[in-house]
């Protein structure tokens, strides 16, 4: 009988101890312990978080920060340090950064919340306005282009993208709308089918737009082809695509024959824990952190 009581008491004690430790570590603000606490220790190592290979956010980030190295043969290498932990979605990225005082990561600007702190890049804060104006460095425009003036279905679809409904879809997908005073969409219901092709960064949101448009206009058929920005522009010039997509500014050689329209702006926020004292990083410092050159916070603070 004595043994039984002992066992029950032991189990109860273990449960209490476990719950105690959960409560202690679950809340980032009270989890002081050996390394955390309210004082931010800049000698600590930077904990680098990245996204998985193939993710649109990752490819935009590596491209804009300059983590992609191209050699003379056109071979490209992703320079992201092998020590970077991979978060396979935005939510895991947010939770990781919110709970790790020494972490750094990046997310699409549309997903940013006050769980984490977004640092300024080269002194420019990652706000929607700064992204829209192009002052914030880790951002890029989403452009579409047509060969000459768009006609018929292509024109109606572009009107839809630039309308209130279309821009709402763009905002929902986490991008920054660039059209001020967008108006409600009035379809002229043209029949036919068109091909939209180009940048793999633009195509996910374009798929959504095409789907929504086809729901409004049953006579239309829009094919979205995924290649890359340059192929998108070249194929549009040749007439293979009716509308081309590019996740960059159009080059002069391209604007000579193409009419470009910006449909959205994509911005990526570099995020750190709320306890982190770092407010601003230069583009070079972000690159050093992600290539593994800068390994402690006092290398960049």
């Amino acid at each position: 009988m004595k043994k039984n009581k002992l066992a029950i008491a032991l189990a109860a004690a273990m449960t209490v101890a476990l719950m105690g430790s959960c409560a202690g570590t679950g809340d980032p603000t009270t989890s002081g312990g050996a390394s955390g606490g309210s004082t931010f220790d800049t000698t600590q190592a930077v904990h680098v978080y990245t996204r998985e290979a193939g993710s649109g956010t990752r490819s935009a980030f590596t491209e804009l920060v300059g983590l992609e190295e191209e050699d003379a043969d056109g071979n490209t290498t992703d320079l992201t340090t092998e020590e970077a932990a991979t978060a396979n979605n935005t939510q895991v990225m947010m939770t990781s950064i919110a709970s790790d005082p020494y972490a750094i990561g990046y997310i699409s600007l549309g997903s940013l919340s006050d769980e984490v702190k977004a640092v300024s890049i080269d002194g420019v804060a990652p706000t929607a306005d700064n992204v829209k104006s192009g002052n914030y460095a880790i951002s890029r425009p989403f452009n579409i282009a047509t060969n000459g003036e768009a006609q018929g279905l292509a024109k109606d679809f572009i009107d839809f993208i630039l309308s209130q409904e279309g821009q709402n879809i763009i905002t929902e997908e986490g991008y920054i709308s660039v059209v001020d005073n967008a108006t409600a969409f009035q379809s002229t219901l043209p029949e036919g089918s068109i091909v939209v092709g180009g940048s793999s960064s633009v195509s996910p949101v374009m798929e959504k737009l095409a789907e929504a448009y086809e729901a409004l206009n049953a006579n239309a058929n829009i094919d979205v082809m995924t290649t890359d920005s340059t192929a998108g522009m070249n194929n549009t010039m040749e007439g293979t695509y009716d509308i081309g997509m590019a996740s960059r500014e159009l080059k002069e050689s391209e604007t000579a024959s193409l009419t470009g329209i910006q449909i959205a702006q994509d911005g990526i926020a570099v995020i750190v824990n709320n306890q982190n004292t770092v407010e601003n990083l230069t583009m070079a410092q972000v690159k050093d952190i992600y290539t593994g050159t800068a390994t402690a916070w006092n290398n960049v603070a």
Partner: protein
Amino acid sequence: MKQRFRETLFQIIFLIAATASIAAVLLICLFLFVNGVPAMAEIGLGDFLLGTKWAPQNSPPSYGILPMIVGSLYVTAGAIIIGVPIGIFSAVFMARFCPKKLYKILKPAVDLLAGIPSIIYGFFGLVVIVPFIRNTFGGMGTSILAASILLGIMILPTIIGISEAAIRAVPDSYYEGALALGATHERAVFFSVLPAAKSGILASVVLGIGRAIGETMAVVMVVGNQTRIPDSILKGVRTLTTNIVTEMSYATDLHREALIATGVVLFVFILIINLCFSLIKRKEGSK
């Protein structure tokens, strides 16, 4: 006549139901090998299995999964080290030492542990185990250790359930015989009953390994997913399963096929584990 017809009809229905699972296994095998083997051939079997660099976005890309194989083995080994002793001792306690009142709480608790979705385990690991490791041992927290602890907990129901059944299946004469020879209760359990239940317990461990090596959603959140061979248990790794789940959504062409080929490697691991399990079972049956 009508009776006869009904019986045949239902026999056929049962037969179809029974073959459904076999058909599913065969189809999965077929899918994996048809999609995975050509990719292995294209990458080169040596480069694929022994390559240490995984960089599908580079051009030319590298598809080496040795870090993932090593990662899976490390994490599984860690789970076994943590889960097996706790599991077996729990089973012994529940079968031979537990007061009835406590058993009524303990048994449903263990069963509940088996029913918790793995994504919940993953979140638990991410908000409790990972910060705990980071604050106690330093490093990023997402590590082999975190995944091992989490998997150690996740394989407990498998190990406890099967081990307990194996211990209970040992005839009482073993226990009574030991007592008759003057052994204490503890001695009788540990030196007479437990060895007799050996093969059942071993089977539970093998099934636990199978569960640990195949677990995906919980592991992906706490393991860090770095594609390099780690030099410490506080460093992160990528396992075979998490390699597939992190990259599958965006992968195209050879990258996608390489991920399916990763699945083939995982499948071969699981086959080996199941083979071990049936060998142990057969040995037990022939005794």
